[in-house]
């Protein structure tokens, strides 16, 4: 994690004698972290494109990531649908635009709320799991044992998990979107009865394919961030079980942070190229 290695130990300046954190030390370890991440990514790509391809392990990881997160993202999506309906309804009534409620709910869910909620939920659920499990494998020599067996851990452990995250995030987003739209309709119809067909038809009338595809596809980038950051944090663990705990926590914190930052860039990109 940026700053981990040298906090409190740097001799860069006299200031470090008075403050527990040395600013040059933190900056140095920040850039070191990115440098190591770059090297790690290079190794993973090299391992992924060269045979043997770990197809069976990839399918196993897709199942692990998809099935273990599906319920959670659908639950988060459902809560989001209800909240959006309740919050938006009162605002739209105030502006005399109540008929736009289905469209507002559906657009909000598929363009932003669904993807970002899915990214953050999966980052918490899967990022921590990957960081902890690979960290535990590292401190118990399991990764070394794999390497000695002639199996490249960057291909078998990292590439498969990263690719599985990239492939599963858009599918999980669809699941979150669906449950959000359904509970959005339920909350709306409880306040003012409306059939599901009518809700969908009214909502989708103002939505084009461009509104739907890019925001869903951008979650593949979120998947890349979750997979890459958590495998990297897991496979560089040092310091026994304490290090494993740190890897799990930092996997979630860093991947959530990078997802939010990436979202800013991707939203700007989507608005620019898919207006």
């Amino acid at each position: 994690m940026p700053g981990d290695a040298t906090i409190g130990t740097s001799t860069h300046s006299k200031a470090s004698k008075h403050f527990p954190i040395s600013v040059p030390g933190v900056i140095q370890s920040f850039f070191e972290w990115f440098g190591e991440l770059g090297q790690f990514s290079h190794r993973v790509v090299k391992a992924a494109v060269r045979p043997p391809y770990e197809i069976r392990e990839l399918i196993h990881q897709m199942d692990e990531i998809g099935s273990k997160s599906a319920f959670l993202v659908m639950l988060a999506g459902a809560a989001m649908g209800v909240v959006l309906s309740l919050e938006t309804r009162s605002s739209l009534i105030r502006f005399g635009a109540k008929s736009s409620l289905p469209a507002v709910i559906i657009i909000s869910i598929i363009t932003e709320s669904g993807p970002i909620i899915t990214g953050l939920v999966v980052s918490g659920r899967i990022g921590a799991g990957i960081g902890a499990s690979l960290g535990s494998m590292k401190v118990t020599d399991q990764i070394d044992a794999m390497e000695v067996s002639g199996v490249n851990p960057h291909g078998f452990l990292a590439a498969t998990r990263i690719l599985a995250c990239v492939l599963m995030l858009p599918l999980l987003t669809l699941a979150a979107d669906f449950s959000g739209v359904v509970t959005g309709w339920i909350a709306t119809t409880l306040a003012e009865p409306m059939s599901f067909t009518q809700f969908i038809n009214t909502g989708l009338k103002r939505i084009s394919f461009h509104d739907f595809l890019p925001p869903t596809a951008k979650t593949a980038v979120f998947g890349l961030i979750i997979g890459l950051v958590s495998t990297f944090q897991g496979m560089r663990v040092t310091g026994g079980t304490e290090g494993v705990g740190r890897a799990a926590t930092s996997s979630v914190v860093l991947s959530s942070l990078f997802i939010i930052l990436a979202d800013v860039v991707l939203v700007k990109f989507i608005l620019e190229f898919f207006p």
Partner: protein
Amino acid sequence: MSDAIVVKNLHKTFGQQTVLNGIDIHIPQGETFVLLGRSGTGKSVLLKLIVGLQKPDAGSIEVHNQEVTSLPVEELNEVRRKIGFLFQEGALYDSLSLGKNVAFPLRRQKDASEKDRLDRARDLLAQVGMEKDFDKLPSEISGGMKKRVGLARALALDPDILLFDEPTAGLDPITAQEINDLILKLHGERRATAVVVTHDLRGAQTISNRIAMLHEGNILIEGTYDELKKSRDETIAAFFRLGRSN
């Protein structure tokens, strides 16, 4: 007899700490070579350097006359196929059954089917007396059993060289003796070269052809068990006096 492993002028440091300071070792084919030494003297590091898990700062390591320190990963993997490694805690994969753990190194054998690999794993587990536990997970067995399964996995690719990292550490004396007997039996059957890192003097006496003691980055003494025992060097004498009394 040709040398299976030749280590020349090997140096390794971690930060400010010099772990290996120019050591030289020759291990002939078929010999059981035991490396003794206090904790933190770099014995396990030496095993990891031999198998290419770490890179030395200077010096060379030849395995069957092939320099391994500068090999690209594909060629290093070919060398590793000839080496079996038993890790200190077994290093069994938590998520795989014992059978699949032992079969794991066989996954690179393209001509073998899944059934062949599992059959071979069952045979190997039988050799270490663990065939009944084929479907158990590593979390369901004891430390001594983990070492047995780790040993079976190390034998999976019929290696010429076996590296044992503290095979009896953390085990009660009876289980430790069982593991030593197993190493002796398997060595007798296969005539593989073995390098054993241990603190266990009884074990060293049982299994070794030759022993070296690593101290402060250098080989302090090298010889048979009896030769070391007769040494008047204070460090060696203390190691034997305290080691045998445990």
